[in-house]
């Protein structure tokens, strides 16, 4: 038994450094094994992004298609039939014909229709005397404002087009807008939502999962054993974070591959820029998780705080679903402190526009700065002993 001891004696001198690569490697290896063995980790890191992307691709479509509307044709005139046919022909509206207003009004309350158009009895006369009053009325279900807006605008467009087709160039408007959508010519909302999916999953992994696993070590008492070894606090924390950093990046790459190959979302920017942005985003995400767990040392509280301070803000206030500009000033100010906001803004650009460094640089700086603050606080909250 003398050889190992002699060796140890030699090692003591050599290892009295604060940082040691091999110790770090051992910690990283341990953490990775643990992460990979827990089915719930894999569920969050690999299944949830796929589910989210599928939902964003198919379910959460901000592009309204086949919105059910009622078309009440009260007039027997041929013109009325022709307009009704115009409604039936559009692919954005799914027209259901009725003869009675009350019928469709009830359907509107029940939510089976999102709006209806009434082609009145005297439609022919109204058409003959333009200027006297409106041709027809469009009613929408205002309880879903977004859909209502769409139905109103679109139905108006249908009527406009129908009239233009009838009158020829007679009533040409003096001013026509020609919208061109840059970066997303087809206006597919999935393209705008993919970055959101990535940001959400990386927030869950970086903040929620990290907060849980660090809190778990305190709860189960394994932290005490590791702290009693020569490993330094920096090694322990970095060893804890690196695997989740890698997991977050892997999860991001999975989501990106799926988005570009399966859902045909283009990646206009470079992969290098995407990797850099994601890597820098993991800094505040991990820092926040670490800070939460160091403060609570309890899984239940850590999960709750991570939910309310990390996940929900990333979901609601990062600008991927809701327009930040439209929020009231105090909330707008608050969003600057949310790392996901800066990440989402850059991700949208790197996917849809390309490498626009004048967008990336301020975002990178902001994420790094927020991360640095989190780590500073976390370092202060974690000491290399068990003092309460």
């Amino acid at each position, binding site marked *: 038994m003398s050889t190992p001891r002699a060796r140890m004696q030699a090692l003591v001198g050599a290892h009295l450094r604060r940082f040691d690569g091999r110790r770090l490697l051992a910690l990283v290896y341990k953490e990775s094994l643990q992460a990979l063995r827990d089915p719930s980790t894999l569920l969050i890191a690999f299944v949830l992004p796929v589910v989210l992307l599928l939902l964003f691709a198919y379910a959460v479509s901000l592009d309204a298609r086949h919105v059910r509307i009622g078309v009440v044709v009260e007039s027997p005139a041929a013109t009325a039939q022709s307009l009704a046919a115009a409604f039936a022909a559009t692919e954005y509206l799914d027209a259901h014909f009725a003869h009675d207003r009350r019928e469709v009004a009830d359907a509107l309350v029940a939510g089976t229709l999102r709006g209806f158009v009434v082609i009145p009895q005297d439609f022919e006369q109204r058409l003959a005397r333009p200027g*006297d009053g409106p041709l027809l009325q469009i009613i929408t*279900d205002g*309880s879903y404002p977004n859909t209502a807006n769409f139905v109103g605008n679109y139905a108006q467009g249908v009527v406009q087009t129908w009239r233009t087709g009838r009158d020829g160039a007679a009533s040409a408007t003096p001013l026509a807008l020609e919208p*061109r959508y*840059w970066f997303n010519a087809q206006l597919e909302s999935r393209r*705008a939502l993919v970055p959101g999916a990535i940001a959400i999953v990386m927030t869950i992994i970086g903040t929620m999962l990290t907060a849980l696993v660090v809190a778990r070590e305190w709860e189960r008492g394994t932290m005490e054993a590791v702290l009693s070894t020569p490993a330094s606090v920096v090694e322990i924390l970095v060893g804890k974070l690196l695997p989740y950093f890698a997991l977050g990046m892997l999860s991001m790459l999975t989501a990106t591959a799926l988005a570009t190959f399966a859902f045909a979302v283009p990646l206009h920017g470079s992969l290098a820029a995407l990797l850099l942005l994601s890597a820098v985003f993991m800094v505040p995400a991990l820092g926040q998780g670490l800070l939460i767990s160091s403060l609570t040392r309890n899984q239940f509280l850590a999960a709750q705080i991570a939910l309310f301070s990390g996940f929900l803000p990333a979901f*609601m206030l990062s600008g991927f679903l809701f327009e930040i500009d439209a929020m009231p000033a105090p909330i707008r100010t608050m969003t600057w402190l949310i790392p996901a906001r800066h990440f989402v803004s850059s991700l949208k650009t790197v996917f849809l526009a390309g490498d626009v460094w004048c967008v990336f640089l301020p975002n990178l700086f902001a994420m790094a700065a927020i991360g640095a603050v989190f780590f500073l606080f976390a370092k202060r909250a974690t000491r290399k002993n068990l003092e309460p």
Partner: protein
Amino acid sequence: MRRLPSSLSFTRLHAQFIKEVLSILRDPRSRMIVFAPPLLQLVVFAFAATLEVRNVDVAVYDQDAGRWSHELVQRLHSARFIAQVRVVDNPAQVRDLLDRGKVIAALAIPADFSRTIAAGGTAHVQVLVDGRRSNSGQITVGYLASIAAELGAQADTDGAAASPAVVVRHWFNPNLTYRWFIVPGLTGILALFSALLITSLSIARERELGTFDQLLVSPTSTLEIIVSKSLPALAIGTLLGLLMVAAATGPFGIPFSGSFVLLLASLVLFILSAVGIGLMISAVSMTQQQAILGAFAIGVPAVLMSGFATPVENMPLALQWAAQAIPLTHFLIIVEGSFLKAMSAGDVLGNLWPLALIAIATLSMAAMFVRGRLQ
């Protein structure tokens, strides 16, 4: 003296109910965590979650500088949704502003703009929109179009085309105030998450601490365990829901037109079905971590598919069917309908029975999983 143990004893149930309530609410820290964040979230998200467009900047590249282009820029300046009109003098600047996301749209007014209008022709204005913000961009174009229409009406002295051909009326929410939609919906989502988290941890925590065995050796039945774990979460979830409904009608001033009794009944059934899902997750989880992550893996997709983010009818048919299994889908219809549409009892009941079905199914599954643990 000793009563024969049956599958449901009020005394045993009462004792467990008290225990569950105290486990959640005795600690002031957890009391705060249960009630404060959801209410705070309601306030923040009620203002934050909006699909309206406000406070955006637009750029104008005016190559005309004639009467009508001046008129157009003037109208843009006074438009309520625009925070700032940035006038630029070359296309490169337009590109730069759009690239950096400084403006959501840029209007390029051609040099012959005023001349064409004066001559009675149709002048074309190119609008470049930031497609990264696809939804807001679309709405912005809508707003710009109505400004163009007003300007066109002013230019068209004949007045023939100026008469509004169509009148659009929005029932239930005439001004399309987005908050009227978001706040009732948030009520459901936040109550759902609270109930889900409380119940998903309940069995997992007892198992980690070893008290679950203590419970299983007592004469209490699986039915009693499930009922006693459901009731406190049900009470808290319902209370939270009611608080938020009160906030919606009070401070937020959202009109409530439906039947309160029916809404309360729906709320109870809705929370009960969420509790069933939470208990199911808890019964299969080995640790608290698994329970929390499980609740997330179920809760997040459920919210996305429920019709809150986007209407269910926009989804493919298969997903529409799947959405029927989500309690939130049905509750959203009821809560939106009860607030704004004075939804009739018949319509409410039509969405109530699926909730009851989901609640029964999930709670029996949870009971089965708990019983399976004894094998």
